[in-house]
């Protein structure tokens, strides 16, 4: 029980749990509907999901300040690409949270004149931007690690010779493209396996990507799939809280 207390004492941990519950409800609702459960049960699950969503919006009030602070800190990073990506990502997150606060005000009845659809679309657009920037940062890190790994390979003796022969042979015939892709893929998998934080971040962002894509209408998938993606990314995020070494730094 002690681990639970330590875990949930962090406000972010509880928020992630509630997010997992929310997307779990979405998934359960879609699954129940497909399997022909009674309309009342489905309605209850949807109501719970709506409550969870509204409650999470309430808890996110003032999160823009958080994101702006993080953006201020990210400006001092040494690496240019990282600096650019992280600052942009945090700024987009701040805008997303600001739109989210407006949505909450509308849903809670404070400002009933708020156009829910318009602000919802806006908030998801900023969220999508933030995720794309995060993924490009991940791609940059992967590229850098792959080059380092390939360079390290070349430094080794006999194996390097063999690899080079393989490479020359690969650069020769018509099957060269397939072989080259295979080599790159193997290198990519090796890099990802050796860097769990990076792998987790890539998976998390990839899962998260489907949510705004669906809500904005860019890539419509079933509600069950969206729920599953949300649940998966929440679980991965909880893992990074339980094991702080799994969090990608900076």
């Amino acid at each position: 029980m002690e681990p639970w207390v330590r875990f949930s004492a962090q406000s972010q941990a509880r928020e992630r749990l509630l997010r997992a519950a929310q997307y779990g409800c979405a998934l359960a609702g879609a699954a129940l509907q497909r399997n022909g459960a009674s309309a009342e049960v489905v309605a209850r699950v949807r109501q719970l999901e709506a409550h969870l969503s509204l409650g999470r919006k309430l808890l996110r009030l003032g999160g823009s300040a958080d994101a702006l602070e993080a953006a201020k800190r990210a400006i001092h990073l040494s690496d240019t690409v990282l600096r650019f990506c992280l600052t942009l990502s945090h700024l987009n997150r701040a805008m997303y949270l600001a739109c989210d606060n407006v949505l909450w005000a509308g849903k809670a009845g404070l400002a009933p004149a708020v156009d829910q659809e318009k602000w919802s679309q806006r908030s998801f657009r900023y969220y999508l931007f933030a995720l794309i920037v995060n993924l490009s940062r991940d791609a940059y890190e992967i590229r850098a690690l792959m080059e380092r790994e390939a360079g390290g390979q070349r430094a080794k003796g006999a194996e390097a010779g063999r690899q080079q022969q393989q490479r020359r042979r690969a650069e020769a015939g018509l099957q060269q493209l397939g072989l080259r892709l295979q080599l790159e893929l193997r290198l990519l998998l090796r890099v990802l396996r050796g860097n769990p934080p990076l792998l987790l971040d890539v998976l998390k962002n990839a899962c998260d990507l489907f949510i705004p894509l669906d809500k904005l209408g860019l890539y419509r998938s079933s509600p069950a799939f969206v729920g599953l993606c949300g649940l998966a990314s929440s679980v991965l995020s909880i893992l990074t809280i339980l094991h702080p070494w799994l969090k990608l730094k900076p």
Partner: protein
Amino acid sequence: AAMERFVDFTDRSQGRERLLRATQYTCMLLSYVIERKADKEELVLKLKQLEASMSSGRKMFRLGNTVHALVAARRTTQLPDVVPRVCLTASNLTRALYFVCDTVLWLKSVGLQPDIDAPKWRNWATKCYYFSLLMNLARDWYEVSWRLEHAVQKEKIKENSSWDKRNQELNCLKCDGLHGFFLLLFQILKNHPPLVLDMVKNLLVLPDLPVISALHEHALLTLDLWSGECQLCPRASAPSSFP
């Protein structure tokens, strides 16, 4: 720097909860004040809606606090002194019961179990909350009284060891009477800020009028902001011998 302070404060689970609670009670107060005035029904409705949404969001965030209270109760059963041990354990156990009632009320408000008797559970929740506060106050009273006793004993020893008769008379005057008692009390409380904060927090409970509960919440919020995480640690046993 102010923003950093805000972020730091709300990052802790407690801080954000306090802010939400303060806002909720402010809404309650405002709706009570404005209700009397005519043609402000819409505003009152909005405030009530806002208060309901904050209350439900806070309850949701509190899910799982039962475990917190049980763990705290387990910890306090290991205190060396009898009175704090009994008081704090009872307080934490009733707090756990309060959170159970709270969870049940949340289940009803969310629509998962619509056939729950809300007034009964709310009644129980209030009783548990007050009992736990009472236990906390009892423990605070005990702490203050043994410190007071200790300080009085120290003064008496100083009196006995001083050779100057005139000084002795003056010292006696200082120790006796209500004036001396309050001076000593003030001295003790000044030297032990966590104890003061705890007592003040417990004593500020007068929730029947919306004004008082709103003021109560704002006072608690201010105390929290000023003191950071000033938790009252369970004290070690009172010293049995005096220097």
